[in-house]
């Protein structure tokens, strides 16, 4: 059984939010897998009401093998573009014995959290902003902070941490992660929201220098149909 870093076990309820395409689903699945492998009783909720493709539900098989409780709206509702939320979500918000991760849709997708705001505020929770410095609308600190504040306003909750997930899919190099680390640092300095980790695909993670927060080596689960 593997161990997990402290930043991942800070509290039992984590929501991953951020600008569209920042990589929330990949981070959510990786956190869930890492915690489940360490023996933590896990639940993952796919609450993305924005994206029709590249959903954490596509990795249901891996999650099931690890005994992760997976919560999502029925496929029929998702493919009908109905922004319906599963009732089972309440279990994740209430059951203190479960370590729960919520995978939230980009930008306006954060609205799903507004409805649960009071339940979330009533317990220790983390709202992690997933940030990719290579995405067109979060390339500068000014843009990233504007996006962050917009999402906070949408969900009615404050951000508690920043996850640097800067990448260029299969073309990512060390310099890309460092570029994102610098952006995350700037955003953190201007908002007093701490940087909690820097994500990097496993082969790249070992080549990173010492950074201001732990490196989170990730596996790529959300693959395109031609990727092996």
């Amino acid at each position, binding site marked *: 059984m593997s161990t997990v870093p402290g930043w991942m076990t800070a509290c039992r309820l984590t929501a991953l939010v951020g600008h569209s395409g920042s990589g929330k689903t990949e981070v959510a699945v990786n956190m869930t897998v890492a915690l489940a492998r360490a023996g933590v009783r896990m639940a993952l909720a796919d609450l993305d009401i924005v994206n*029709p493709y590249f959903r954490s539900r596509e990795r249901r098989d891996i999650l099931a093998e690890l005994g992760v409780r997976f919560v999502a709206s029925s496929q029929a509702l998702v493919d009908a573009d109905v922004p319906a939320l599963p009732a089972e979500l309440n279990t994740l918000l209430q059951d203190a014995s479960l370590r729960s991760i919520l995978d939230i849709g980009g930008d306006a997708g954060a609205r799903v959290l507004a409805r649960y705001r009071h339940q979330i505020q009533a317990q220790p929770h983390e709202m992690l902003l997933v940030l990719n410095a290579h995405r067109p609308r979060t390339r500068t600190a000014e843009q990233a902070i504007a996006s962050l504040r917009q999402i906070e306003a949408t969900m009615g909750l404050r951000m508690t941490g920043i996850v640097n997930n800067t990448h260029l899919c299969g073309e990512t190099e060390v310099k890309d992660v460092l570029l994102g680390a610098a952006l995350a640092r700037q955003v953190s300095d201007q908002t007093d929201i701490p940087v909690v980790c820097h994500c990097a695909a496993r082969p790249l993670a070992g080549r990173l220098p010492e950074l201001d927060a732990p490196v989170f080596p990730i596996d790529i689960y959300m693959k395109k149909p031609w990727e092996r």
Partner: protein
Amino acid sequence: MEKELWKGNEAIAEAAVRAGVNCFFGYPITPQNEIPEYMSARLPEVGGVFVQSESELAAINMVYGASSAGMRAMTSSSSPGVSLKQEGISYMAGAELPGVIVNVMRGGPGLGTIQPSQCDYFQATRGGGNGDYRTIVLAPCNIQEAVDMTQEAFDLADLYRTPVVVLADGMIGQMMEPIVWHDVPKRELPPKDWAANGRRGRDHNNFITSLRMDAPDCEEHNRALQRKYDLITEKEVRWEELDTEDCEILITAYGTPARIATSAIEELRAKGVKAGLFRPKTVWPFPSKRLAEIAAQPSLKAILVVEMSMGQMVEDVQLATKCVKPIGFHGRPGGMFPSVEGIMEQAEKLLKEVQ
């Protein structure tokens, strides 16, 4: 140049902005919603016009109107929505109006599914609406190409005064890839002296219409259109080849299935099977001439066509090659992808059959 990570739909929208699109008219439908969403924020920043129309019919007719006035106009939709636009596209072809129509295809028929598909090939390449006409149809297989083709589509539309379709499957619209914003070569374009945008010192009014009541006149108009389509076929056909020099099996695919086929070809080659790829980048005009040449290569034993449909482009492959070699088909319809293994298996099976 710096790489950026873009989602296909957003990138197509930004590419249109960089190509100088003046007006976007559209109606929401998955999986292309990021195009109008992006345009709604971006076009006002550059002095353009964004209208979320009351329907797809309204959107395409707004494109007709704006184009008539000499504007660079576009619309985007997904399969069922593009069906609704066919009347307007036919009218644009008849009135010789430029315009760009993006179809981010989903599974059909009817409302079908929001998952990706290529089931609108016939509709896109055979005209789609009523009458004898064709549209130029560009088929990107990655985000960089979607960006480049979208920009070029506006020049092609203006150059030939014809609607141009960018035909992408849902995966191209929804996935993210690194791209570079580089300068796309620009065409030399004639002035839009035909536009109905005021008298401007002319001695006559410009009229834009597809109505030709006089039959001999309408016949001559059809012949003139055909001459234009012949010219486009001569000048604008495009394709890409991979490992075709010595291949014994040629996989023919466009869009996302071409990416999957490329992975299959790598693995087939590693196993000693000489496989190659032929990827049309324009599906109309179809690269028939070059495909026929490859089909005639003595080393080639068979052609496998792979599509996310029940078999549509396969008919163009049959027409182009006159079936001089056996042609197999592997299709996944209804929002499903062919797999690398599935393509390999079909290719090996086909080779065994012809040996």
